[in-house]
């Protein structure tokens, strides 16, 4: 059976309406006036009630990671005697419309939460297993994107791939689950998604098997001591940042009843490295930048064989101090080369 189709805008609306009956459809959506500055918009992932709400012109400020890893999630309730796990509010399956970089980003989270040694995180898994990826074909990069350098510009991990054009949608349907609705509403057509093959921003990854220890204390990191204000935006907007803290909260003045939550944390934020007894390490922002950089493009690779960072460029988009992560990677590579000479 042929698996690719062409649909007029009207036909695609019918597909969307049909799917909406059984799935929650989520995609990047524009919220007018809710941007950081007045009279600016906020683009973030949210349920879509119509395909017209899908924002394609601009990159979202936040990633779709909320769907599998919400900013604040109750894990279980306790009362001093027992505990019970928090149920999900519903068990709707979710279709998420997202670009290849974010599909790869969620793959990086999968490795972290489900393929890390033998431990599978059940709270992550129960959300992850509800997701179906509808890939938004991405042929032109946005500002600050460097997905090609990170080898995250392509993906074949999707239930359907969609090209949104002026008068309709071209679709390749990879999952049989969704085949019928596309086949019934659209007409047969040859379509294979294309991918960005070059970004304006290119990074050169460090070509070392092992980081030379001197680089940890290199003066390269010093500039970030004074530049970074540890606002944490690079962490919260990043699709692959997966750090969290756990927080127990007690109801009213109870000492026994309450709940345990896990809440996003980030290596640039104050308090991330606080330990029992009050000790803290990585006090300097430069050390935090170093830690993030190594995690994104070195340590993670050692463990999982791919880089963590997918080059979505959101960290560069949102940094109020104009700190550019892609520039930082290039600075590191240049420094390593100098050292080798």
């Amino acid at each position, binding site marked *: 059976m042929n698996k690719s189709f062409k649909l007029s805008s009207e036909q695609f609306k019918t597909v969307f309406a049909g799917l909406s009956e059984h799935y929650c459809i989520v995609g990047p959506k524009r919220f007018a006036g809710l941007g950081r500055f*007045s009279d600016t918009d906020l683009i973030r992932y949210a349920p879509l009630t119509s395909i017209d709400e899908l924002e394609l012109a601009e990159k979202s400020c936040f990633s779709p990671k909320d769907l599998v890893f919400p900013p604040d999630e109750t894990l279980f309730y306790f009362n001093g005697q027992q505990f019970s796990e928090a149920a999900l509010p519903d068990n709707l399956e979710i279709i998420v419309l997202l670009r290849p970089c974010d599909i790869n980003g969620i793959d990086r989270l999968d490795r972290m939460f489900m393929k890390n040694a033998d431990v599978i995180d059940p709270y992550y898994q129960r959300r992850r297993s509800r997701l179906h990826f509808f890939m938004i074909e991405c042929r032109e990069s946005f500002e600050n994107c460097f997905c090609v350098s990170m080898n995250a510009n392509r993906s074949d991990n999707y239930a359907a791939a969609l090209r949104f054009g002026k008068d309709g949608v071209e679709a390749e349907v990879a999952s049989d689950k969704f085949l019928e609705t596309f086949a019934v509403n659209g007409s047969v057509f040859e379509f294979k998604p294309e991918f960005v093959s070059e970004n304006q921003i290119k990074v050169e990854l460090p070509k070392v098997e092992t980081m030379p220890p001197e680089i940890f204390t290199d003066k390269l990191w010093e500039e970030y001591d004074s530049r970074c204000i540890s606002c944490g935006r690079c962490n*919260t907007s990043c699709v692959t940042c997966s750090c969290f803290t756990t927080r127990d*909260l007690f109801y009213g003045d109870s000492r026994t009843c309450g709940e345990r939550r896990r809440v996003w944390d980030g290596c640039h934020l104050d308090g991330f490295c606080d330990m029992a007894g009050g000790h803290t390490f990585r006090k300097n922002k430069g050390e935090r930048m170093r830690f993030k950089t190594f995690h994104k493009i070195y340590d993670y690779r050692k463990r999982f064989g791919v880089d963590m960072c997918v080059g979505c460029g959101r960290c560069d988009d949102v940094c109020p101090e104009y700190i550019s992560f892609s520039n930082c990677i290039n600075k590191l590579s240049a420094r390593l080369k100098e050292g080798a000479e």
Partner: protein
Amino acid sequence: MSLDLNRKKVTKNAYRITKRRNYTALRVRVPGGHLNAAQLSIIAGLAETFGDGTLHVTARQGFEIPNIPFERMSEVNAALKPLLAELQLRHGVQIDNIDAGYPGAGMRNISACVGNRICPFANADTTALAQRLEGMLYPNDLHVKIAVTGCPNDCVKVHLQDFGIVAICEPEYHYDDCIGCEACVKACERKVTGALTMQNGKVYRDERRCIGCGECVLSCPTAAWTRRPGRLYRVLIMGRTGKRNPRLAMPFLDRVSEDVVCQLIKNTLPYAERHRLKCIPKEHIGYIVDRTGLDVFKEEALTGIEFNPGARIAKTIQWPGYNTLNDANFKLISK
């Protein structure tokens, strides 16, 4: 031939009497303090062609072009035409004869801070509101000073105006997006009023302390604070400089819509006309309010206004200021 001028007419045409006999200075209005480079070139051209090639940037964000011979007023007025079209007609000002220069010298230029066209702190496009007010109010013969500022930092110093308009916001909290990083709490504590506190890892806002500056929105890394859609303002009234009793403007209306602000100021014009002292040319609005009392001002200036839900009004006002005649406080320290 000797000059024979109708001084009152000339003044109304925005030319002032200057120290130098037979020479005048033209006041150019720039509502909202923002203009484009081409308009600036026209103003520069006026100074070069008719004046002495210099310009004064006024405290109210207009220009004063000095040393123009009175005889050349009609030529200047003709050259002013494109400026009047762009900076007045465009904002809705009615001018009967566009060839005759400015139709009035009052009220004073409406100034504005840079607002959200430039400033990240701003809660509104201050220039746009100043221009809207210009369209509604100019020309008139009353002594009223108005300025619009984008946030409570008050860079344009609305505290010294008769009507000081401060754009504010109502921060809305999205509980599920908050990660308890405390950035907003620290920002409000260090820079503003300490309206936010942490409880159980979440943030609580004391509405009575919150002044709607928007610092919390700016500082949140997860957009857990956003501005509630719809513009809101605080209106401070009857601040002034001057020879008698300088004082700061005080909050009168809070959390009101743009329409309420505009209607309030519009209603003030007939109020001032009714109560002003007729024996001096232009009594400053603040002194009129001093004479009638706040209650009469309230009654007349609020007539017919439909307030937005959530609007608040000051019960009483005591203006901090001083009388310039307090000589008793001074002693000689050097003879």
